[in-house]
Each structure stands twice: as C-alpha cells, then as structure tokens.
C-alpha cells in the first residue's frame, strides 16, 4: 500500500525546478540580473508577498480564500505610518499596531465566515473594500527612511555592514522567511490547529461530528492569516519609499497565485508552507525577473496567468488519476 511518492508527483518539486530554470535563463541572457543589487532588490520586493502567501495558505487549505490581504496590508502600513508621522508614535509601537490591525481584520473575516457562515469570497471581498477605503483616508505615508530616527526597522530585513561605498548589505529577510517557513510548516503538520485546518478543508461536517469546535478553529485560521498580513505590512513599509493610499488591490493575487503554484489543493484539504514559499518565488521571478530579459509587463501578466493555469491543472489531473485508480 505504501508507495514512495515520486518527486515529480510533488508539485513543490516541479515549482522549484521552474524557479531554477527561470534563474538560469535570466543569468544567461541578462547582464543586469547577475548584479548583486538586482538580487537584493528582488528579495526586498518578495518579502511582503511571501508573508501574505504564508498567511493565505491557511484559508486556502480550508477551501476558503482571503481577498483582503493586499488592500489590508497597504491599509495597516498607511494607518501605522500616519500615526508615526502625525502623532509621533514610536516605530516599534507602529509595528505592533500593524500586527494588531491585521489580527483584528483576520478575526473579523473568521467570524463572518466560520461563525456567521458567509461565503469566504464575499466576506473577504467586503473587508478588502473596507480596508481599501480606510487606507484611502490616509495621506501618502513615508515611514522614516534609513537615515532618519526610527529607520532601524528597515534593517529587520536588510542588514548593512560598513558605510558609504564599501557598505555591504545582507538580506537578512530571507533568513527570517525561511525560519518562519519551517515554524509554520511545523504548526500546519504537528499541532492541533494545523491538523484541524486540514480537516475542515477536507470535510468540515465530519470534523464537527468528531466533536471538534470547528467554529473556533475556522476563526483561528483567518486570525493567523491576518496576523501574517500585519507582519507583511511592516515588510511592505520597509521596502516601499512611499506607501500610496488606494493601492494594494491586486497584490493579493500574486500571493494567492503563488500558493496555488506551490501546490495547495484548489478544493482544500492539502497545502504546505514550503510549497507556498517556492510558489511565491516563482511568481516573483516572473514579475520582477522578466523585464531583465526584455519582456514587457503585459507579457509578465500573461505568462504568470498561464503558469497558474498549469499548476491548477496539475492538481486536477492528479485528482482524476487518483479517482481512476480507486
């Protein structure tokens, strides 16, 4: 009965191969891409996407979705930034505020979906609009720059050694992302919360009949997602010179797309944080990498869409194959 799963059967492996192939192509065809600064800037702009992807993996595993992550992220960054600039809130407190706001919207999503029974699409579409609205009320917010007081939060993601022309920048963020990936992967596979997330996605009814408080865990799923989105807003502020009000819509699609490329089951019941990391890297490589080999942004979109279709098709074909065997 117990067959060793072949690596090619694992979508994460395929996604990783795609990522490697992309990098190799870029390295061959673009001089610019071979520069260390390109590498740094690409990573800079991937952190918030990765964090959103980690977060939204949980709702996706339950068969739901969270559309509010993109506008939510920008909204928290705007609100907290506004507080720093206008009210003199210390940057440390602003970071905490980002997390709290994310958690709050996450819990709101969770209650709407898990307790009140709204469809995840509708519930999170509503909070998506609400957060965009709140964000639009703020003015464009420059968080402190690296040289200003409170600029230290930039170095959460990028450590700088030395000064001036000799300065060496080390992308500490990627280490943070990898550590977080393993922590969340552990949570998903080895804790009650993770297990019930999968169980709800697989068969909510049976899970409830097993005596599990599915409402509580369903709320938790969105709360965890929200918390990670809160963190992503810090990452977003750290790399964006000016956070613009009214933006953020569409960013959620990069993250959700990344999770699907990483192999989450489109109908729920399976997913992995490692997969979400790899999948988001693929999306990021397409988004920020294709210009290096001279492809217009329209092409990036088209290719990204095609990659997404292919990844979801893999899931469907696998399921059909399994059904044929049974």
């Amino acid at each position: 009965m117990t067959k060793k799963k072949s690596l090619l059967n694992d979508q994460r492996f395929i996604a990783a191969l795609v990522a490697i192939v992309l990098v190799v192509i870029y390295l061959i065809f673009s001089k610019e891409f071979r520069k260390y600064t390109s590498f740094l800037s690409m990573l800079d702009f991937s952190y918030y996407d990765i964090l959103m992807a980690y977060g939204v993996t949980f709702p996706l595993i339950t068969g739901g979705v969270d559309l509010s992550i993109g506008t939510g992220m920008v909204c928290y960054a705007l609100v907290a930034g506004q507080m720093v600039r206008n009210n003199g809130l210390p940057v440390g407190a602003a970071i905490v505020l980002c997390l709290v706001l994310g958690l709050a919207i996450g819990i709101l999503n969770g209650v709407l979906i898990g307790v009140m029974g709204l469809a995840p699409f509708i519930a999170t579409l509503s909070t998506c609009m609400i957060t965009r609205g709140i964000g639009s009320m703020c003015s464009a917010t420059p968080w402190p720059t690296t040289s200003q007081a409170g600029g230290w939060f930039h170095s959460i993601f990028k450590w700088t050694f030395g000064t001036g022309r000799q300065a060496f920048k080390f992308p500490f963020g990627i280490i943070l992302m990898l550590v977080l990936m393993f922590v969340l992967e552990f949570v998903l596979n080895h804790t009650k919360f993770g297990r019930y997330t999968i169980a709800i996605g697989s068969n909510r009814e049976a899970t409830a009949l097993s005596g599990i408080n599915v409402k509580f865990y369903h709320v938790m799923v969105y709360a965890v997602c929200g918390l990670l989105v809160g963190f992503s807003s810090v990452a977003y502020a750290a790399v964006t010179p000016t956070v613009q009000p009214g933006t953020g819509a569409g960013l959620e699609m990069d993250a959700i797309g990344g999770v699907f490329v990483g192999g989450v089951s489109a109908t729920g019941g399976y997913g992995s944080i490692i997969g979400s990391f790899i999948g988001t890297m693929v999306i990021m490589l397409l988004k920020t990498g294709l210009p290096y080999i001279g492809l217009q942004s329209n092409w990036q979109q088209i290719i990204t869409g095609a990659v997404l279709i292919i990844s979801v098709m893999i899931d469907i074909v696998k399921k059909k194959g399994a059904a044929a065997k049974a």
Partner: protein
Amino acid sequence: MGDVILTMKGIDKSFPGVHALDHVDFEVRRGEVHALMGENGAGKSTLMKVLTGIYKKDSGTITYEGKEVEFHNTREAQDAGIVIVHQELNMVGDLTVAQNIFIGREPVKGIRIDDKKMIEDSKALFDKLKIEIDPTAKMKDLTVGKQQMCEIAKAISHNAKVIIFDEPSAALTEKEIDDLFAIIRDLRAQNMGIVYISHRMDEIKVITDRVTVMRDGGYVGTLITKDCTKEDIINMMVGRVIYEEPKTHSMCPPDAPVVLKVENLNAGRMVQDVSFELHKGEILGFSGLMGAGRTETARAIFGADPKQSGKISIMNKQTGKLEEVTINSPVDAVKAGIGYLSEDRRRYGVVVGKSIIENSTLACLEDYSHGIFIDKAAEKKVTEKYIEELATKTPGPDQLVMNLSGGNQQKVVIAKWLVKNSDILIFDEPTRGIDVGAKNEIYKLMNKLASEGKSIIMISSEMTEILRMSDRIVIMCEGKKTGEMDIAEATQESIMDKATRNIK
C-alpha cells in the same frame, strides 16, 4: 446473552407533519447482536438518532446501565460508550488513518501532536481487531471496507459498550462482509451490545441473535432469530393495511409498442447488467430498497452519470421503429425525448428562486425565442396552459417557485418536461415530501399522462405507491435487476422477497 444494558421505552418523536416514532420500545443486552429491521422510513435511523442525541425525543425514557439518561449530542453518547458506525462514513479523507481515529483527542507533547503514539495506539487497536491497515495511509486511499474497519476501530477506542451498525454491509464486498462479521462476533464475545441495522435477510439470519421489527414509525415486535423464518420477518415488515386500492391489472394494452429498450446497462457498482423495456403509455414501477441502484440506473440512462457499457434504444417518432441512441449527457437525453424528475426536487428539479414561467421553459428556451430574444408572450401562454392542465395552485405564472407547496413544485417540474414534449418521463420518488392530498393529484396526473401516451418510469420506495400506480414492476437489489412482474401477479411479499437479495 447477558443482562439488559440499554432499554428504550415509549419513545415518541414527531417532525412537522410526520409522526416519525410512535411509542417505540427497544432493548439491547450485553453480548448480543440485535437486528433492527423495517422498510425505508420505518423509523430505524430516527430511533438510533434519538438514542445518540442527534434528535431530541418528545417523550419516553432511555435507561442505560441502570440509569435514566438523555444525551444532547453524539459526543455525550460516545463518552458514555454508545457509538454509531454510520452508513455514510464520517471520515476526513485528507488525514491519515491514525489521525482520523484520534481526531479531537490527539495525544500531545507540549503543543506538538504525538503522531508516534497515535500510530502505535492505532496499530494496537488493529491488532486487537485482527485487521491489517497502515495507520499512516491517507483515509481517502483506502477501500470503503477498510474505511469502515477504521470507523469500528475508532468506536472501540472510545471504550464502547454499545455499538450501532447502520447498514454496514451496504457498500462492502463479500470478503469484506466476512471480515466484518468476524469482528462483530469478536465484539459480541467481549460482551458488547450490538445493534445491527440491515435490509439483508440472509445476513440477519447469519449474524444476529434477536430481531426487532419496526413499521411506519411504530414497534411491531421482537423475535429470537433462530426460532423464526425469513417469511415471519417479511410479514412483520410489510403487514400493513393498504388504504389505497392497488391496481389489479395493467392499464397498458399488451400490444403497446416498446418506446425504450435498455440492454445490459452497466454504470459503476450500483448498476450492473440492467435490462428492461418500457412500453408506450405504460407506468413501469421500479421497486427496491434504499441503495438498490434504481436512481443510479435512471441517472445513467439520462446521461447524468457515466456508463461503462450498455445499449439504449428509443422509438423514433416518425418511423415508429426502435433506434439505438447515444446518450452521454442530459443534453442528449432531453433531445431523445427523456425527461427526468429528480427525487431531490429542490436541488435538481426546479430553480426555486425563479418564477413558474422561467422554470417551465427552462428545458426548451430555444423554442420560445426569436434569435437571442426570449418570446415572453409565448412563454406566458404555454405556462398558463399547463398551470390549467395540471391544476397547479398558484396566484399566477409569475409566482416564484419557492412560494409553492411541494406538490405544486412537482407539477412545475412536470410542466417543464411537458413543455419540452418529452415522451418518456422518469419520476424518481414523485411524492416524496408531499402531503396525502397532493399525492393523489400527482397520481391522477401520472395516470392521465400515461393514458395520453406518455411512458413513465416511476422509481418509488413506497410499496403502496408501487402497487397502486404500476402496470409492471421491475425490482432491483444491490445494483442488479432481481425481478420483473406484471401488476396482476405482484404482491407486497413477492416484491419484498426479490428486493431483499433473493435472486431467482
């Protein structure tokens, strides 16, 4: 057999419009296998749901281990040692076997779930049951039989004293049933009380010690299995007074041409080698117990489910000759003149949020359109015609279907297929959820349609309905056709006999 562990006395339960349980008595002793039998809708499952706290009883007492008890949910019943192994398994397919068995009570080390201990405990459970299942396998990868073994293992791990098997063998192969019986005997030897709900007469004789029969929500009697015959049990199950006069002879002329011929139809486990003919103007009853494969047969003919093999021929209206047709989807079936009235009306039959007009012309909108525009006037006219013809009670054709009663909703579905001019109508449980008065109207309507030359296949689990409406009866059991008889020779007993796996 040991002492009495569970007694249910005078259990009464009503749902709006239905007296589901009428002062039912039932008891289970330690170390016995007690069969609970009855036709579909006799109240067996309802009784067990009352016992395990899924439904709240209106009156009566439940005594368990000498104390009066009332459980409010399955969890409480489970904790007390009463567990149900459901017919439809409550499994989380994406989790492993061990994770399923211990769901909700996982052993933990800190925050980490102790998977190793879970796997070991599962192995120990399986050893105790003498079955071999890999605890780390994903649940969805197991066969239905193995999944059921896991449910049993889960039940036992709750320290169960009473285990209820709700039609456990329905989806199992012969070999798996043998394994199941071995386990049940083992559990009996360990002094557990076992309730065994099944329709299969042969199994009852093999595995059970006593039989309690229910009928129409009431208690009929309890027999010692080895002292009674199969006929005794059947008589107790069907021995009701039939209020409506059954048909005594076929209304369909013997020389009526065949309009539909199905040969050796195969579609999954539930439809095996089914062949039959339907004549013009005939009502062909499909009888059998729940899960006999009747709906599946209808869905396969209608193209709603894929078929593996088989030949379907339909009479060509022009030439009057049978011609083989290929039906791969409901679109093909509707084109061939077949209309299907689903047993789940609200889900598959009508669009409840739409008007009668919109529902009536749904299947043939192209006939009521000019180009891309819908001809509202023609639509309204035809809908009004059928409202009158079928005597649908409604303030007007614009009424939303959800505001109609069950019987009138059914009429809208019928109208839909009449508007489409379908000649072959498959009625799947046409009167389910419809009150008595409306039932009679539907019956009248079906008779009228048949006399006008429509041919009807009527799937019904109600014996009285079968005997009252059918000109001929096909009986199915376990996905196979087990009998076919003219109404003149049909009796409740002869039908029930064939429906309980007595393949002649």
